[in-house]
């Protein structure tokens, strides 16, 4: 009886990009095509699709940001495999410039959750409409801590330099990543993320070449009329960092934790096509929340940052941003550093 139009199959092209201008109080300013990412999605049929994102960073560096095959087994159960985003916190998954405030992503999402954090993996994904829940669970490859004599992880940015990004990656230990989103209350979305496992090494016999990692994330987003807010909390516990630091001479912390909280208000009426969000964000995070062995805490790794600015959404998917940042640390009597940022972001 029903005869809907033929469903579109085949290729979809999309992408996102950000062009940024950073002007710190001290030092030279930078103008950069920070990211330009082309999305290609190919739908083989209604159940099977392949999604990939090719990224150009700073114009000249090429990466594959995502490349996975999705198989929809049923309405609420999908299988997924390939190079995927690790579902930790808000911004790692939703990192397109129109989806967050600020020219730069929150600093927590650089040093604590190393966005864009992606690894090879395999797992399940789905939604339960009756319970307003989205779930994800993957077996994934992890950060590399030791690669043929080179130690990758360090105190200032924790795990960031250990990302393998699916490039000839070393896989010595499987890791587990999972996330649940709940959106059953109007305007509110809650998320709980878990990541558990061990870092990768090219030689397991080297003492201190691996550390254990257990990361927990809790986040909340609330939108009501012209007001919106978000909160993200991350706690990462690392084991055997004393052995790792001893072997490497690095200063990796044994616990990294922190949060940010942000509120924004749309100055334009809800019926307008455009949106002008003014926002204020406060971040407090520490990549040396705890240290093990002989390591002394470096207070400069405890950051306290405030960002104030606006996001002018010219259309859905096109934004002009401007903000001012004050970046301080817990070092006694240290002075905060200021920075002015401006940027253009698109998502299509």
């Amino acid at each position, binding site marked *: 009886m029903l005869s809907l139009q033929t*469903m579109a199959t085949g290729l979809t092209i999309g992408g996102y990009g950000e062009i940024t201008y950073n002007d710190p109080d001290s030092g030279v300013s930078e103008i950069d095509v920070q990211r330009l990412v082309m999305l290609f999605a190919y739908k083989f049929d209604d159940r099977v699709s392949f999604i990939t994102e090719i990224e150009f960073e700073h114009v000249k560096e090429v990466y594959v940001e995502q490349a996975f095959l999705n198989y929809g087994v049923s*309405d609420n159960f999908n299988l997924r495999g390939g190079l995927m985003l690790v579902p930790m916190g808000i911004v790692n998954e939703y990192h397109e410039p129109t989806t967050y405030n600020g020219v730069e992503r929150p600093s927590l999402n650089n040093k604590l959750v190393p966005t864009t954090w992606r690894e090879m993996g395999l797992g399940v994904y789905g939604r339960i409409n009756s319970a307003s829940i989205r779930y994800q669970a993957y077996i994934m490859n992890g950060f590399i801590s030791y690669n043929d004599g080179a130690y990758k992880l360090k105190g200032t940015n924790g795990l960031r330099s250990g990302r393998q990004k699916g490039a000839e990656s070393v896989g010595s230990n499987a890791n587990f990543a999972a996330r649940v989103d709940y959106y059953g209350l109007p305007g509110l979305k809650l998320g709980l993320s878990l990541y558990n496992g061990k870092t990768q090494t090219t030689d397991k016999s080297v003492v201190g070449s691996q550390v254990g990692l257990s990361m927990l994330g809790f986040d909340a987003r609330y*939108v009501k009329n012209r007001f919106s807010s978000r909160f993200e909390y991350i706690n990462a516990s690392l084991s055997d960092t004393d052995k790792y630091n001893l072997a490497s001479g690095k200063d990796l912390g044994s616990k990294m934790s922190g949060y940010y909280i942000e509120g924004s208000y749309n100055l334009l009426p809800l019926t307008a096509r455009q949106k002008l969000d003014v926002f204020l964000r406060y971040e407090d995070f520490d990549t040396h929340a705890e240290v093990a062995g002989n390591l002394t805490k470096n207070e400069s790794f405890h950051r306290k940052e405030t960002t104030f600015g606006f996001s002018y959404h010219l259309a859905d998917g096109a934004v002009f941003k401007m903000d001012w940042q004050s970046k301080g640390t817990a070092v006694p009597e240290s002075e905060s550093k200021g920075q002015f940022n401006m940027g253009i972001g698109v998502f299509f």
Partner: protein
Amino acid sequence: MELHRKINWSFVLLYFVVLLCSSFSNHENILYKNILKKVKKEISKVFVLEDFELSPIQIQPNEELIADFSGNRLLEISSNDTKLGYAYIGTAPSKTETFEYLVLFDNQFVIKKAKVLLYRESWGGEIGSKRWLKQFLSKGTDYKFIYRQNISAISGATISVKSMTNAVNELLSSLNFLIQNKII
């Protein structure tokens, strides 16, 4: 021996490929059947009925109609010659795909149920939430839904939320036109 094994394996593989291909050959038909099955199940639940008839309502194309009424999308629900209500099966865009949704109306074209029948894209599927879709209930054809005002936002699903809101608004105003002009 080794070669034999390889040949055997390739036959097994070929068999599976053929099986897979044949299972997908009639894919579109199966898809519509599944959608219709879901529609019937929903009508059963909402109108608390085991037996009912669905008859398509043909609407002539008209420039004033924003909603799509082709392909038997608007159906009259009746039981034992008593008209009970209407069902509309729509297609709306998500970010890079389309999704199918169902709106059930009573006799007076007041919304009794809104449901996402088939959502294809990985992102934005949160609009399938029963709780979120409840916001459309009990409204008539003269009502207008406004995103973030009387329809709450879902973070991470903005495009699909707006699309569904828009689709229901277009459906209501089109139905309103049809009623005003005594076409239905």
